[in-house]
């Protein structure tokens, strides 16, 4: 049984609307991703956080838009000539009588007037493209010149320290523990000592590191010369007694003698 022309036309309209909706959703998601990336670069956080946000936004935006736009009332809103007719025809597509068939013919005629431009705002599209270009340029500039408004990791670390006790008057258990920990730190980072002979995996990301690749040079070779003394001599040290004035030497001697007697 051949498909009714109205059914095919309705399917075509729905598909076209879905494609346009997906395209606009993609554009919006791209803008969100780039904006997030820019912000993350400026606060020294990994760029892929932005990808997570963009994926979540894209999924929600697409589901909501497709759901809304697949409803033919959206088409009627954009094409006033088909107001209430398109939905009526779609809802009564299985009915066959003189009025329904006549209405289907009217709607098919009206549908020929539908243009993609009704659903795709070129003004909005242009604005989005300009936004994409501007944000992209900002990202490249920020990455190339290491522009950072703040280091989020440092900020978090500093914020964490805000609650910690710092005064010498804290004599509680926590305070004492803290002092002990501090004392351990003087031996260096334990994790480095534990590394032993393992190979260190380091990856320098130009975008997030302090190293300016443009100003680095190959390492310079340095020559080390020995500066050892030619002759080693042993000398007697100056006696402590000699540095005491003569008038006091006897008193000091007798003082230490008496101490020795009492101990």
């Amino acid at each position: 049984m051949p498909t009714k022309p109205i059914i095919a036309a309705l399917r075509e309209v729905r598909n076209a609307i879905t494609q346009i909706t997906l395209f606009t959703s993609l554009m919006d998601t791209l803008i969100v991703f780039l904006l997030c990336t820019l912000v993350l670069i400026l606060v020294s956080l990994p760029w892929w956080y932005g990808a997570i946000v963009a994926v979540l936004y894209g999924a929600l935006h697409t589901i909501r838009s497709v759901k809304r736009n697949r409803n033919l009332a959206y088409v009627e809103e954009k094409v006033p000539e088909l107001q209430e007719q398109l939905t009526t025809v779609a809802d009564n597509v299985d009915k066959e009588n003189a009025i329904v068939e006549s209405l289907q013919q009217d709607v098919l005629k009206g549908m020929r007037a539908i243009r993609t431009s009704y659903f795709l705002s070129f003004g909005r599209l242009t604005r989005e493209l300009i936004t994409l270009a501007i944000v992209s340029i900002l990202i490249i500039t920020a990455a190339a010149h290491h522009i950072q408004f703040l280091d989020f990791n440092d900020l978090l670390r500093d914020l964490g320290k805000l609650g910690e006790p710092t005064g010498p008057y804290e004599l509680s258990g926590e305070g004492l523990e803290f002092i002990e920990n501090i004392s351990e730190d003087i031996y260096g980072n334990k994790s480095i000592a534990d590394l032993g002979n393992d190979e260190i995996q380091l990856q320098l990301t130009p975008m997030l590191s302090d190293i300016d690749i443009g100003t680095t040079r190959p390492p310079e070779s340095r020559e080390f010369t020995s500066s050892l003394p030619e002759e080693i001599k042993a000398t007697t040290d100056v006696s402590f007694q000699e540095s005491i004035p003569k008038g006091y030497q006897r008193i000091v001697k007798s003082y230490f003698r008496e101490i020795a007697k009492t101990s």
Partner: protein
Amino acid sequence: MRLEDTKKTFDHILHEMGKVIVGMDEVLKQMIVALLTNSHAVLEGYPGLAKTLSIKTMAQLLSLKFSRIQNTPDLMPSDITGTYIIEETTGGKRTFKFQPGPVFANVILADEINRATPKTQSALLEAMQEKQVTVGNSTFKLEEPFFVLATQNPIEQEGTYPLPEAQSDRFLFKIRTEYPKFDEEVEIVNRYAEEEKRVVLKPALSKDELIYLQNLTRQVPIAADIKKYAVSLVTSTRQKKDLIEYGASPRASIGIVLAAKGRALLEGRKYVSKQDINLMAMPVMRHRIILSFEAERQNLHEDDVIKQLLK
């Protein structure tokens, strides 16, 4: 009649009625919608607002059998339905023969229906509902189309028997006739206070054509959303407890959708719009809701409450 000609036919009916009736466009349209939906309507308004004249004019435009029942307190059910009479044959033999009453017609004008006793009202309302009349042991089917247009006066209380809600529910519409505007009243004076001109009305609709249009009305498609809107409107009368004591029944939902289809056809449209539902909500629901004491205390009428629901 072709589908494309329906609008012309309705325009012709309205034009011909306009030769007699001044203004009252909405009332006339609602009467035609009642005709298209094969339903009955009651016109309510103060005396002298052309209720009876508009029904008589419409009857003239239809090539249908028309009868008028002038309701009075002493009117008996048999005066409406008909009765058995003794008939003498040529051989001198006497037999009972059924003499049909005025209800055996296509278009019936039941004038001042609230002046008939409840017993007589019941006889008429039974005929309206069942489209048949039982006299004695015999049941007589009424001819299609069967259409009752009743009138009643809202201010006359003495010697009247207001229709109970259950019986007024049988009327699809309660059409309210309002006072004419100033210019319309001047036109009425010009037409009827000066030299009388005989207006000749050309019948616009035959019986077959009317049945065709009634079938066509039921075929008018309606979108699911609009249908749900109509139903939600009716169900909201049952939820607005502060102003409505008793809401409209599902018969009101059927009535609104059907009336909206008729209205769409009358306007020459092949689909029902939300506007049709809004226009038909008032005449379909105003006699199907009972206001609460609070609404009466606020001096609100049925139409005021329905307007609130339409917002």
